[in-house]
């Protein structure tokens, strides 16, 4: 019989961590995601699966613990909320530079600065573009339900190890705090020592043995010619990911004249707005990017050739809308609708935006 639980999004991340075979979680309390660490400490997975859980002294320390664990070929993760993720910026750049796999969950709150503990989607730029110094990318997954916060832990680890890249789950305080049914169909054990060795001995610090040279985890290279090659290698990997890993979901797109593009919690609200528009006789479809990087640029390009306009509701001042505009490339109008500071729009608000713009 399948196991079903009614839990919060943050609790789903903790459950997903244990059941996805995660080896280590390192975190620091911050609202609205503290339930991840709390749940793990309550469940004591070190007694069941052997998973390590450490409350670090800061987010800076958390992300560097992730760096150390990932270097050892382990499935490791952390979670935080916006200000805490800013503190992890340097570590994320090192992880990307050293090509280490890991999962970082951002349960976004409103900013800037200390901002508010209320939900927001204002870290889109940070997640997909300006995470930290240097040219690098993370794969960014945007869950729109508690179920997806559970599932994306599995997907996150799979993608992280497939490409040796940091993966970010970009959630927000709405999904992190709301309770929904989670079906725990996906479960798997932690890797054995032999499996870790098989998967990662070519690069990870598993201990130097006679069969190979020493492994060194580093992002440092003082020779510019070699450093450029390393950058080219990273960029080639990113192109491969862009070609293979774009994920999105569509509804009512067949005859759509207008498209709403929304991610995460906004997509939940927008979905209701689209139903209202359909009931009012408007031909509106919904496109929900699941990967924010790589972005469904190609699909939006295609749609731009046949629809009359795009509406992009986001809980921010207009961030993902820039990527939609780049894809649409001036062919049809693109409107942004946003709320900030922890305020949330209703389906009616989005429906009204559609009515006002689409004519």
């Amino acid at each position, binding site marked *: 019989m399948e196991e079903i639980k009614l839990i919060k999004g943050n609790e789903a991340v903790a459950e997903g961590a244990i059941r996805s075979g995660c080896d280590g979680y390192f975190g620091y309390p911050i609202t609205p995601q503290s339930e991840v660490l709390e749940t793990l400490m309550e469940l004591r997975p070190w007694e069941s699966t052997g998973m390590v859980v*450490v409350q670090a002294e800061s987010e800076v320390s958390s992300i560097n613990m992730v760096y150390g664990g990932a270097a*050892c070929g382990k499935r490791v993760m952390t979670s935080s909320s916006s200000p805490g993720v800013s503190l992890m910026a340097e*570590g994320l750049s090192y992880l990307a530079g050293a090509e280490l796999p890991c999962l970082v969950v951002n349960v976004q709150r409103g900013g800037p600065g200390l901002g508010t503990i209320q939900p927001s989607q204002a870290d889109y730029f940070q997640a997909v573009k300006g995470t930290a110094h240097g040219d690098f990318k993370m794969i960014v997954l945007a869950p729109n339900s508690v179920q997806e916060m559970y599932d994306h832990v599995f997907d996150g680890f799979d993608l992280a190890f497939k490409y040796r890249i940091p993966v970010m789950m970009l959630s927000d305080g709405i999904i992190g705090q709301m309770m929904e049914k989670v079906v725990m169909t996906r479960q798997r054990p932690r890797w054995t020592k032999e499996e870790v060795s098989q998967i990662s001995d070519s690069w990870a610090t598993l201990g130097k043995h006679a069969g190979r040279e020493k492994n060194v985890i580093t992002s440092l290279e003082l020779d510019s010619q070699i450093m450029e090659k390393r950058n080219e290698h990273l960029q080639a990997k990113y192109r491969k990911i862009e070609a293979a890993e774009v994920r999105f979901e569509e509804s009512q797109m067949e005859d759509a004249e207008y498209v709403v593009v929304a991610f995460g919690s906004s997509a939940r609200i927008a979905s209701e707005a689209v139903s209202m528009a359909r009931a009012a006789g408007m031909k509106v479809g919904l496109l929900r990017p699941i990967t924010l990087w790589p972005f469904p640029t190609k699909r939006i390009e295609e749609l731009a050739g046949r629809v009359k306009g795009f509406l992009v509701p986001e809980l921010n001042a207009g961030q993902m809308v820039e990527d939609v505009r780049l894809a649409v490339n001036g062919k049809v109008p693109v409107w942004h609708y946003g709320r900030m500071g922890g305020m949330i729009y209703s389906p009616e608000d989005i429906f009204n935006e559609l009515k006002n713009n689409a004519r």
Partner: protein
Amino acid sequence: MSFQVEITPENKVYGKTPLLTDNVMHYCPGCSHGTIHKLVAEVIEEMGLQDKTIGVSPVGCSVFAYNYIHIDWIQAAHGRACAVATAAKRLTPEKMVFTYQGDGDLSAIGTAESIHACNRGENIVVIYVNNAIYGMTGGQMAPTTLLGMKTATSPAGREAAIHGYPYKIAEIVSMLDGVCYVTRQSVQSPAAARKAKKALRQAFENAMAGKGLSFVEMVSSCNSGWKQSPVDANKWMEENMFPFYKLGDIKVATEPKEA
């Protein structure tokens, strides 16, 4: 007159440990790092831990420590070595994990990570090379720079009113329950190096026995940063550094830490 040297096991008095690579070290002539690297490599070899040891190198002069010892290495962000080592040891407890950090890395930017790894009693070894200056960036003032000492950022000499006081992080961490062993050593003479090696061996044994964190400070000279000859720098160290950073054991826990 010519001598013929017969190489036999009986008359061999010294050999380089095979754990040291043949790479030419980037350190300045007269620097202490080379000697400390050698001691670390010898201890790992003598304890038979080559395939079990993970070194964590810092940012600073010893960032390239990974080029010189044949073990697996993780190069950490500036100051974060103890956090990196914490996870490596927790996730692979059968391993010998040590950090190798300078005074800027450990006692300035990495204070929080270092103190908290000590306080959690991670079963790792922290090797702390204190030469009272930032060597890699060209000789700026460190938290450990002595009062009156001239550096690129204290050109008139360190003044307490402007820069605060030099501090002894070894004494600070010795107060924490998670730390089982704190010692301050140096390597400017063969006798000092022999003692330092003994201390390193003790620290590595503590970590493998799960006794908590061992902290080995190496008071060192930086003749380039201090703008002295290697010989003068060692003399200056003995006359100025040792009275402030007193050598010897600071803490040797007799009881294992409580679970």
